[in-house]
């Protein structure tokens, strides 16, 4: 992760229409290194849709997303972002180590090695355990470990605190604070009120 250069993510005039229902219109935001964007709103207000638009899974009905001033398609956006969604994206028939190796092969290696990352999310020693033997909270921590082993600036997290206990939540908050201090940025949705020290948290309420 490069600390010296700053990155920016910009959305302008974004709108999303789903089944003839306008979820949001003319939404604009700007995010630079070190900041967190927290999307709030009631269920069905378009939080996940906005995240999926940022990931490029959906096209916005209007508006543009810019990464460091360039359109996402013309920028190295996908090499610099990581997404953890509702679905964990991990295979339950593979071991913890095999899953992380796969994520690493799809991207480039980041700040931590696989073993350091597992230690950080309190899964050290679970390397050879099949994921189907893990609890829901452990699975979530494993999918978050992916953020640590790959090189990325922007984290896009959809309800990262689901099925985590208090310790787990505190752990993720620490990781998020560290990431921002290292010049990263985060876009997330959460029902849980996040508690980040010394981090510039911007909020958008969609409802």
């Amino acid at each position, binding site marked *: 992760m490069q600390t010296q250069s700053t990155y920016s993510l910009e959305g302008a005039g974004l709108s999303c229409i789903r089944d003839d229902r306008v979820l949001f219109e003319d939404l604009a935001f700007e995010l630079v290194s070190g900041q967190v964007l927290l999307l709030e709103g009631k269920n069905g207000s378009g939080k996940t849709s906005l995240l999926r638009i940022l990931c*490029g899974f959906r096209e916005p009905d209007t508006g543009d997303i810019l990464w460091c001033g360039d359109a996402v398609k013309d920028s190295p956006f996908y090499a610099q972002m990581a*997404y953890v*969604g509702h679905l964990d994206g991990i*295979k339950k*028939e*593979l071991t913890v180590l095999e899953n992380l190796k796969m994520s690493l092969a799809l991207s*480039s290696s980041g700040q931590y090695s696989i073993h350091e990352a597992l230690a950080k999310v309190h899964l050290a020693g679970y390397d050879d355990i099949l994921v189907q033997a893990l609890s829901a909270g452990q699975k979530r921590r494993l999918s978050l470990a992916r953020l640590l082993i790959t090189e990325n600036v922007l984290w896009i997290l959809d309800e990262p605190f689901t099925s985590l206990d208090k310790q787990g939540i505190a752990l993720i908050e620490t990781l998020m604070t560290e990431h921002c201090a290292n010049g990263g940025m985060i876009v997330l949705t959460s029902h849980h009120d996040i508690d980040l020290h010394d981090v510039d948290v911007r909020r958008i309420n969609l409802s």
Partner: protein
Amino acid sequence: MSLSRAFVAVIRRDLILALRRRSEIANPLLFFILVITLFPLGIGAQPHLLQAIAPGIIWVSALLAAMLSLDSLFRSDFDDGSLEQILLSPHPTSVLVLAKIIAHWLVTGLPLLVVAPLLAVFLGLPNHSLGILLLTLLLGTPVLSLIGAIGVALTVGLRRGGMILSLLVLPLYVPVLIFAGNAVQMAGSGLPVDAQINILISILLMALVLAPLPVAAALKMSIN
């Protein structure tokens, strides 16, 4: 961040997964064997008839076995979110998708090749056409996986895409069926089959180059 490493990693991962859930390998293979063994029982004691239609039986069974196995190509990745991660990779999706298709063929297509000689003898296929049968299967079954992948990619987002999938994919399988079946038939009568084999090779090469692109595009649509 090398593309070849990602390519190999995807193939490796899918092979490990197939080994851990064995039904994925066993199902199409068992289906292939069962259908072919039922034909002699249904037709009765008419060895000449059986011998005459053997190439057709083997190829139609291979085609249906391939159809049966298609859904597993992207289903589990779609359900657990791995597909999202593959699409978000900075590597070109079409190349990663090609790796998945190759792994799928190794798991579902290649085993058919292994049992085909045995079943051919069982149906009384002349020995001298055995080589051609294997060659057509070697050239044809990868095409079934490649073309099938387009159909699966289009329908994986639908909960009940099975019916549409067969309607989409089967017509596209017909050229392979015609040329492969015909080649084996001709070889049985001792006629040259260069033309059919060349056409199968060209179909395979075309599918290898062209299929991954629409598959990648269709997956992006399905994931939405």
